[in-house]
């Protein structure tokens, strides 16, 4: 197993300009590390540079201490799973899986045994001699995984491997991938634009946009303590209200919104390096699931409004409220009060759930 170090990695294309801008990060041995970001943020290009299909303009890629920046893809000893699987259409499932072994001159019984093991690992023993076009999308994806793991590479790279699967299958595959990682302990780098996948599977996540990494941290860290406004908006359903700090009293911060409403936050719940003195502009954010219906006794951080939209999504009831401070999204869990469109309700933006972020959009 290896650790992977990216050192000020930069790549630009003549058409699209700089797609990866001075990215530095380190993936530890045995980690399941995710590059998360919207399409076009440079995450796939970063992965392709790690795999050896693109050459960076500058910067360095190291596996442990070994500089592999310009090593050919075939010499890197990585396993790669493509978004569209890229199975060899003229070969059987077993031949596909055995390709990496054949290249490494592992043949005969030894190869057959390894192929059998790999197929068993992804529960495809029955399909060994099938043509790859006879398989379903999910099965093809598992063949691709077996093919990338069979020769025991030191690093596994996954490029949006689930984006072609349907919702139900994705949940199953997530679990399967988690188990596989737990069993093999292989250092893995996973690229996705799906925040749910990233949060569910990773030991750590790097959130990227417009060629830059905004935050690296555990799923809980990036979700609960976003370091930039982009991270705050990209993960989950978040409400953000821009205002001006009026008073800082102990750890209590009072933010005055344009309509005159004041919202209380805390100095312990802000993005790092956020200037907090009277007059500084900040965004007060609160996640939809942290907004509750206000009780009679609530005084602070209460806003009233009219329900403009209700969406029943099973476990939760997602509502949208029109209020003086702007629209409020809230997710109600369980069978409490069920507002309907047009109802007038008051909600509590609990100061314990308010998180302060910078006002300016992503740099």
């Amino acid at each position, binding site marked *: 197993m290896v650790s992977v170090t990216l050192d000020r990695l930069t790549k630009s294309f003549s058409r699209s300009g700089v797609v990866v801008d001075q990215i530095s990060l*380190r993936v530890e041995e045995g980690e399941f590390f995710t590059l998360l970001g919207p399409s076009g943020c440079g995450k796939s290009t970063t992965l392709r540079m790690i795999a050896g299909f693109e050459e960076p303009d500058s910067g360095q890629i190291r596996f442990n201490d*070994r500089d*592999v920046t*310009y090593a050919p893809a*075939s010499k890197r000893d990585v396993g*790669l799973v493509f*978004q569209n699987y*890229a199975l060899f259409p*003229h070969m059987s499932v077993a031949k596909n899986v055995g390709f990496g072994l054949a290249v490494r001159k592992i043949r005969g019984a030894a190869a057959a045994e390894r192929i059998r093991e790999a197929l068993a690992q992804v529960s495809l023993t029955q399909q060994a001699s099938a043509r790859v*076009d006879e398989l379903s999308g999910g099965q093809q994806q598992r063949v691709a995984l077996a093919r990338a793991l069979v020769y025991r590479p030191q690093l596994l790279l996954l490029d949006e491997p689930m984006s072609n699967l349907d919702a139900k299958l994705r949940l199953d595959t997530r679990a399967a991938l988690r188990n596989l990682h737990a069993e093999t302990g292989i250092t893995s780098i996973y690229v996705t634009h799906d925040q749910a996948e990233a949060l569910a599977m990773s030991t750590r996540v790097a959130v990227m946009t417009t060629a830059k990494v905004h935050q690296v941290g555990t799923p809980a860290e990036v979700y609960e303590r976003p370091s930039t406004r982009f991270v705050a908006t990209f993960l989950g359903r978040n409400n953000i209200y821009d205002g001006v700090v009026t008073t800082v009293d102990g750890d209590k911060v009072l933010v005055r919104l344009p309509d005159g409403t004041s919202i209380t936050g805390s100095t312990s719940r802000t993005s790092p390096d956020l200037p907090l003195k009277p007059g500084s502009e900040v965004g007060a954010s609160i996640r939809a699931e942290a907004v509750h219906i206000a009780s009679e006794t609530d005084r602070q951080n209460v806003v009233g409004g009219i329900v403009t939209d209700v969406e029943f999504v099973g476990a939760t009831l997602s509502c949208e409220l029109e209020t003086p401070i702007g629209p409020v999204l809230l997710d109600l869990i369980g069978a409490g009060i069920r507002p309907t469109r047009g109802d007038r309700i008051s909600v509590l933006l609990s100061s314990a759930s308010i998180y302060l972020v910078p006002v300016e959009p992503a740099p």
Partner: protein
Amino acid sequence: MTTGATVIGESTETTNPVYKRPSWFRRRLSVIATLTVLLVVLFGYVIGPMIATARRSLSTDRINTMGISFHAWGEFFLSDTQRSAIVGSITLSILSVITAGLLGTTVAILLSRWNFPGRRICQILALLPIATPPLMGVWAFKLLFGVGGRIPFALGEWFGVAPKDFWLQGLAGVLIVHTMTIYPYFFLTVSAALMGSDVSLEEASYSMGASKARTWLRVVLPMLTPAVVAGALLTFMSSMASYTAPLLFQYTNVMTQQIVISKSNGDMRLASIIATTLAMISILFLAVIRTYEQRKIYRTQSKGGGRQRSTVTSRLAKVVIALIAFPLTLFLVLPMIMILVLSFTAKGGWLATILPTDYTLQWYAQMFTGVDFWQPVINSLMMSLIAVGGAILLGAGAAYIMSRMKFRGKLGLDIAMMLPWALPGTVVAINLITAFSDPSPFAAGRVLVGTFAIVPLAYFVRFNPLVFRSSTASWAQMDPNIEDAARSLGATWWYTFRKIVLPLVSRGIMAGALLAFVDGVGEFVSSVLLYTPSYVPLSIEINNQNYQGNIGTGAVYGMIQVALVLCVLVVTQRMETRADADSLRTT
């Protein structure tokens, strides 16, 4: 704001090989090397000869290249014969577009919109003209419709009219050949458009209250426009290039004929002038076609069930459609039937009758007894094989580097590769004559004109675009990730190429190569200007035999060509079915 996760240390020791950043030259070595080869071949055999012809057209001497003068160009544009030939070529092409367009579109609508008994057979037969050998096909037309032809004769027998009045000669003869050999362009493009058009658009039109007539006029026909225009451009180009039909119907008022006449008169300069003019017109049309191809073609956007053909239920309508479709189809395959009948007709066995009176197997017996009977077949097979071999190297090679490598000037290279496809066979032949009648570095310092090599070279130049195009298509279909996958699994470039790339694209390349091979076996136009008597290609032999009155022998050679074409069509069809199955697997 960028947050590095961990402090980054400098690496000190490595046990593995160190890979340095390759130099600019090393990184581009493969592109530079392959491009150099490509450009040398393109320049030596395609662009260079074109320039040689243009240069020859400017010489002050009729036969040799001397000095520079525009004098001859002035004469060319003032000459009544030449001006008339330009107008003649264009008129013929426009007329061909109209007649072939009407026929092709009608047949396409008839055969793809209504279900009636026998539709499938008609559909297959309608494509048979593609398999008709070019030269023998035109001969068949001449014997059917020309002076003393069987159709006018039959009309005379049945209706008591004077057959003489129905002999098709000159322009009329050429036009009927063009109509009936070129209409498949329209038939194929319009059929494809009809099958691919979105039924829900028609349904939408009906649901908004439009009548059937209005729907056809306002929805269905406008959607066919791109297909019809594409067919028209192709038809125009191949009519401009047509040489065989004017030759056999003795219609000299076209540019291709004038090229050959000037060359026979020893005026290579005039031949070069006409060839250059014709080349420029063809290139202009190639440019128009390529621009038009960029535009959107209407395709179905709905998922699910394909087009439902309206089944004709009323008995009367069935009879009416069948009555139109069957004779029409029969008429279209008439030349093929004619060649077949001729190959069994004894000499003098078909004089004053509608059908032959005397049949024989003696022409086929020549296959086993005739001295040197197989020689022209072998010559043509060899010439085609050499040409196709070269075309696979150049065409498929160029397609590969153009689809996988990054470099500037790709569009220019693409145009240069496709250029000979637009050039008439006569022009290609004249270009090669002007370029290779003197010792040339591209012919190892030798003169190629008058040797065996010049004919395969002409085939190579003419049919390379076919291989290039089919290879480009199959490389475009292949997911580049598949190559990356093999590389990341540890395979070298060469291993990946052998085990992954070649098996996946070989069918597409072979499909183009087989088509090129078939075209080579039937090639007449440039052969007639370039062949040497020691190596007579098949089509030349057919022409010679027919002129000597051995039409039976010519017809047997024609049937051999038909057999070759059908073999190739069957093989290609099979490959396509399998390729379709393959392409499903990657999605």
